[in-house]
C-alpha cells in the first residue's frame, strides 16, 4: 500500500510540471505578439515595449517559464486582457458556480443511477434490465447540449416553468444539473449493474439466501457496499468528462462558471484566462483522479497489492 501511494505521489509533480509546460508552450507558439494584444490595438510602440518588459517577454523562454511557474505557485496567473482583473480573481468568482453545478448533478446521477443499476441486476434479462440498459446506452449517446436545448424549448420557452438562462434562483439549477447528470448517470447505472451481477453470483449470497435472509436486505446490505466503487470511479476518475460537459452545459445555459469563462475567453482571445482556467481544470482533474485511485485501492486489496 505504501509503495503504491509513494509511486503515485512521486508521479504527481512530474505530471504537474508537464501539464504546466504544455499550457505555457501552447500559448507561446501562438501567432501574433502577446505584448501588443495585452497593450491593446491603439497602443503606441513605447507602450507595447513597456508591456513586453512587464510581461517578461524580453527574457529567454526558460526564464519565462520559471517566472510563470513561480507566479502560478504563488497564486498569480496574470491579468485578463478583457477585464483587466487578475485571472485568479476571475476564476475565484466563477468557480463556486461550477462546483455547485457539479455537486447537484453528481448527486442526481448517483440517486438515479445506483437504484437503476440495482434494478437491472436484480431483474437480469427481464424488462426492467432491458429498459435500464437501453436508457443507459441512449444516455451515453446523447449530445448534452441537444438535451439542454430541447429541455429549454419545452420547460422554459413553451411552458415558462423554469428560467431560461443564468443562475438566478434554485430553479436555475434544475435544467443544467439534469443535462450534466445524464452521462455520469448512464455510466453509474451500467457499472452498478455489472458489479451487482458479479456479487449476486458469489457463494456468500447463496448462503445468505439459503439462510432465508429476505431478498431486500441482501440487496441493500451488499449492494450499497458494492455501489461504492462505481460511484468513486465516476466521481473521481471521470471527473474530466464532467468538466468537459460543464464547459458545454454552462455555455448553453449562460451559467456563470469557469466553463463558460473558458469559452468566452477563446472568443476574445484572452490568453491569460485560457491558460489559467485550463491549468485550474487540469489540476482539479489530477487531484480528483489521485484521490479516487487511493480510495479504490483502499477498498480493493487486489489493486493495491497487484
Amino acid at each position, binding site marked *: 500500500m505504501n509503495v503504491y501511494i509513494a509511486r503515485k505521489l512521486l*508521479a504527481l509533480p*512530474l*505530471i504537474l510540471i*508537464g*501539464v504546466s509546460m*504544455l*499550457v505555457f508552450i*501552447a*500559448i507561446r*507558439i*501562438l501567432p501574433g505578439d502577446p505584448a501588443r494584444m495585452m497593450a491593446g490595438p491603439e497602443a503606441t510602440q513605447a507602450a507595447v515595449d513597456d508591456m513586453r518588459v512587464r510581461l517578461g517577454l524580453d527574457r529567454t523562454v526558460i526564464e519565462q517559464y520559471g517566472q510563470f511557474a513561480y507566479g502560478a505557485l504563488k497564486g498569480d496567473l496574470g491579468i485578463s486582457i478583457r477585464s483587466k482583473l487578475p485571472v485568479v480573481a476571475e476564476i475565484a468568482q466563477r468557480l463556486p458556480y461550477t462546483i455547485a453545478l457539479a455537486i447537484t448533478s453528481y448527486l442526481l446521477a448517483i440517486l438515479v443511477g445506483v437504484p437503476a443499476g440495482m434494478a437491472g441486476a436484480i431483474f437480469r*434479462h427481464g424488462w426492467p434490465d432491458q429498459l435500464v440498459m437501453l436508457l443507459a*446506452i*441512449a444516455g*451515453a*449517446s*446523447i*449530445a*448534452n*447540449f*441537444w*438535451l439542454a*436545448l*430541447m429541455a*429549454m*424549448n419545452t420547460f422554459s*420557452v*413553451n411552458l415558462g416553468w423554469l428560467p431560461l438562462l443564468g443562475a438566478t434562483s434554485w430553479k436555475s439549477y434544475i435544467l443544467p444539473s439534469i443535462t450534466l447528470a445524464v452521462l455520469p448517470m448512464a455510466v453509474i447505472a451500467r457499472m452498478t449493474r455489472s458489479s451487482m451481477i458479479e456479487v449476486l453470483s458469489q457463494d456468500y449470497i447463496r448462503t445468505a439466501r439459503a439462510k432465508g435472509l429476505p431478498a431486500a436486505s441482501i440487496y441493500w446490505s451488499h449492494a450499497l457496499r458494492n455501489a461504492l466503487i462505481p460511484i468513486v470511479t465516476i466521481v473521481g476518475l471521470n471527473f*474530466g*468528462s464532467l*468538466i*468537459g460537459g460543464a*464547459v*458545454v452545459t454552462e*455555455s*448553453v445555459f449562460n451559467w456563470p462558471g469557469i466553463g463558460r469563462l*473558458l*469559452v468566452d475567453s*477563446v*472568443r476574445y*482571445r484572452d*490568453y491569460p484566462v*485560457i491558460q489559467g482556467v*485550463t491549468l485550474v*481544470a*487540469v489540476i482539479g*482533474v*489530477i487531484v480528483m*483522479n489521485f484521490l479516487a485511485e487511493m480510495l479504490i485501492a483502499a477498498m480493493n486489496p487486489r489493486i493495491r497489492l497487484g
Partner: protein
Amino acid sequence: MASVITNSDTGTRHRRRALRGMLAHRSLIVGSGLIALIVLLAVIAPLITSYDPYQQDLMQTMLPPSFDHLFGTDDNGRDIFARVIYGARISLVEVTLSVGLAMIVGVPLGIISGMTGSYIDQAIMWCMDILFAFPGIVLAILIVSVLGSGLVNLLIAIAIFSVPVYARLSRNLTLGLKDMEYVEAATSLGISKRRIMTHYILLNAIGPIIVQSTLTAGTVILSAASLSFLGLGAQPPLPEWGAMMSDGRNYLGLNVYMSLFPGLAIMITVLGFNILGDGLRDLLDPRK
C-alpha cells in the same frame, strides 16, 4: 448418446453463455446495421433529396415539417432534411480522419514504448499521461485557441486528445505479446526488431485496437459536435450537426426543428457506434 447432467448449474451456465453470445450478436447486427445505414445515406445523399443543403430560399424560411420539406426549413430557407443527410458525410469524415490520425500516431508510440522499455518507455508514457490529464474538450479548446477555429484544426485537436488512448492500449497489448513464444522464436531466428513490431505485434494487436476505435468513435462525434456548437469547430454554412444546432439555438420557441433533427442524427449515429463497440468488445473479451 445419453448424457446425464449431474450439476444443474451446468445447464444454466450453458444457457447463459448462449444468451450472452446472442446478445453480443444482436448488438453487432443492430450496431453495424445502423452504421451501414448512415454510411449509405451519406454516400447516396443526392439521390435521397433533391434539395441542395446550401441553397437559400428566403421566401421559404422557418417552415415546419411538411411533405415538401420533411424536416422543415431553417432561418435561411434551407431544407433541414438535406442538411442533416449531407451532415452525415461531415461527421463520418470527422470520425475517420481524427481516429485514423490518432491511431497513426498513438499505436506506433505504444508499440515502441512496450518493446523498448527503459527510459524511452518512461518518456513516452510521461507525455501520454500529461495529455491524458486534460479533459478532452478542454485540451481541444486550448489547441483550437492556438491553431484557430475550423474543421481541420478541430480534427487535429480531437486526434491529439485521443492519442494517449491508443498509445496506452498498444503498449499494454505489446507487453502481453512480446513474451509469447512465437515472438521469442522470431527473435532467435534473427528477424529484425522492426519487422517483429509490424508483423508479429501489430498484426496481433489490431483487433482490440479496432474495438477501441469503435468504442471511442461515439465520443469523437460528440466532442466534434460540441466544439462546433460552441463555434470553435466547423463554421457556417457547413451543414455540420453541431454547427446547425448552434444556429438553431437562436430560434428556440420559433423553430425547434433546426435543433431537434441534427441532435437526433447525432444520437442515432453515436448509438450505432456504441452498440457496435459493445458487441465487438463482448465478442472478443476472453473473460466472457
